[in-house]
């Protein structure tokens, strides 16, 4: 268990008194070469929000990288501190679930946009997502992600549909989304469960749905996801746990097999701030 007292980062507010604003959080583990792109886009996103009088910062949490990330991150923090770039360097590797939960506790503002080091945020669109989460009071809003592969011809899209019940069989909503910390705290954040390893974001989404929370699809481009060999969940490991994972999901979320006949509160919620619910 990570001892938070060892972190030199103490929020000056209580969890129930979070200033309205957005913290863009980038967990990093050995992604040195990808960090400049993700951090630059996040800083530009924060700047966009500040232009709309919404406080924003960028929090990078380095999960004890060994590839030189930390040196780069310290330099970037020094350079862009005034633009809102903050760094937490963990003294030991704790894994992405603990990193995200730490961000939920340590971030400066009420809303958190989680992205990964191999993601790029579309800065000009972040304000639309903030308007959407405020207007709908959703626990989470998400938008289209373009997936680009190592070769130019490979391009795809995901994160591109509203919540439907087939998500109980296969996840199609990525972590790269905007969250309301109040509500994520209420459902106790990300859970570390062995059979859901690498699928903790899916577990949280199902948990939010089962708890009656709203997850709203905003039909706007949120970002770009660069597929690298290291981006994928380890397929062997993933397949190994597939049966256990399915059993777990059925046991927790679909005991009576009625999920496909029951519409949760979040079913098919689509919202655009310039249009309304669609």
């Amino acid at each position, binding site marked *: 268990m990570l001892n938070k007292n060892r972190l030199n980062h103490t929020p000056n507010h209580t969890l129930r008194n979070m200033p309205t604003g957005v913290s863009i959080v980038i967990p990093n583990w050995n992604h040195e070469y990808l960090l400049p792109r993700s951090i630059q886009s996040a800083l530009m996103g924060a700047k966009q929000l500040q232009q709309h009088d919404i406080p924003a910062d960028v929090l990078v949490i380095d999960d004890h990288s060994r590839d030189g990330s930390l040196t780069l991150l310290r330099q970037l923090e020094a350079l862009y501190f005034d633009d809102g770039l903050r760094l937490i360097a963990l003294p030991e590797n704790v894994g992405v679930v603990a990193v995200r939960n730490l961000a939920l506790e340590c971030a400066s503002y009420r809303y958190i946009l989680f992205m990964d080091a191999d993601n790029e945020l*579309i800065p*000009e*669109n972040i304000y*639309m997502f903030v308007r959407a989460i405020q207007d709908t009071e959703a626990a989470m809003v998400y938008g*289209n992600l*373009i997936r*680009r592969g190592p070769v130019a011809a490979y*391009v*795809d*899209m995901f994160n*591109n*549909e*509203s919540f*439907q019940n087939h998500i109980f069989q296969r996840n199609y909503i990525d972590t790269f989304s905007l969250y309301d910390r109040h509500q994520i705290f209420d459902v106790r954040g990300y859970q570390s469960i062995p059979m859901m390893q690498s699928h903790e974001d899916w577990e949280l989404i199902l948990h939010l749905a089962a708890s009656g929370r709203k997850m709203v699809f905003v*039909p*706007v*481009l949120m970002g770009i996801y660069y597929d690298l060999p290291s981006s994928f969940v380890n397929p062997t490991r993933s397949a190994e746990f597939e049966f256990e994972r399915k059993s777990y999901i059925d046991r927790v979320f679909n005991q009576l097999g009625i999920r496909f006949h029951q519409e949760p509160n979040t079913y*098919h919620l*689509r919202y*655009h701030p*310039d*249009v*309304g619910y*669609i």
Partner: protein
Amino acid sequence: MNTQVLKGVRILIIIPGTVSYFYDEEGRRVAEALRNLGGCVDVETLRSYTPQPYDWCFLMNLSEIEFSMQSKAKTLQHVRHIKSFATRVAMILLESVEMKWFFQSLQLLQEADIDILLDLGFHNQYERATPETRKVYHFIFNGLTKSEREAAYQMFTPLEERPLPWTFVGHLTKERMRFLNKLTENLSRDGFLYLVHFTPVTETGPHLNQEQFFTVLTRTQYKIWCSHHPFFYIESIRFRMALLAGTVPMKVNLDPHRAFDQSLPFSYLIHHEDDFHDAINQLDFEETRQKFATEFLEYPSLEASLLDGLNRLG
């Protein structure tokens, strides 16, 4: 237009009913146009029609109707039944005659022994059709109905009330993704983008239904789309919807041969994917919208086109 020209003519229109609201909507438009001509029109599904004497029966795309019925045998059985009390039966088409779904419809048409195919669209596809198709093919211009002509300028709201620079809605394909990747790099990234997995278009989603899509378009400047197949085709439905929502339609031509007949309707709004962002950047929204609306209203109405088509068929 002589509004009584079809007085006493009894017409049955069969729509799919449970799938593809496009064809349901078109069936209702055809009904409106035929009623405006004095015809007595019933709009039904294969599950709801009542056998009675009709002069005409129009089937709004047999493969869509079959999909709605979930049974080819039942579909053909019903169509043969309709033929026993309707003097003439025709299928209405609103798609490219080169794509695979069309050939499914054609096969059903042949199996049902129907010899009239009415292609409701913006351009005659006879030259693109196979010899088998040509035997039954008749083109009808998909103009505006009387109520649509009256509503043409109703949603012409000013640019400042249209915060969405563009809208792209459809199902996700590799070709569309390739285009959107370019569009978001070269034009802008803040458009309304709704691409869902391939699934039948119904009122309950995940596709946007007619009303939802229309609402989005009333806040949009440019409605952009491309076909989900490589064959050249001008989707009259998309253009009409854009007009009624007060947006400018922009069609992306994915045809690798690029060239198409520039005398076709609204060819200045159709551009190859490589030229698209330059083309749209050169347009003035208000000017283009006005030009588009004026031209659309100059084309024959749906009433006039249908009457002409029926006269040609004797």
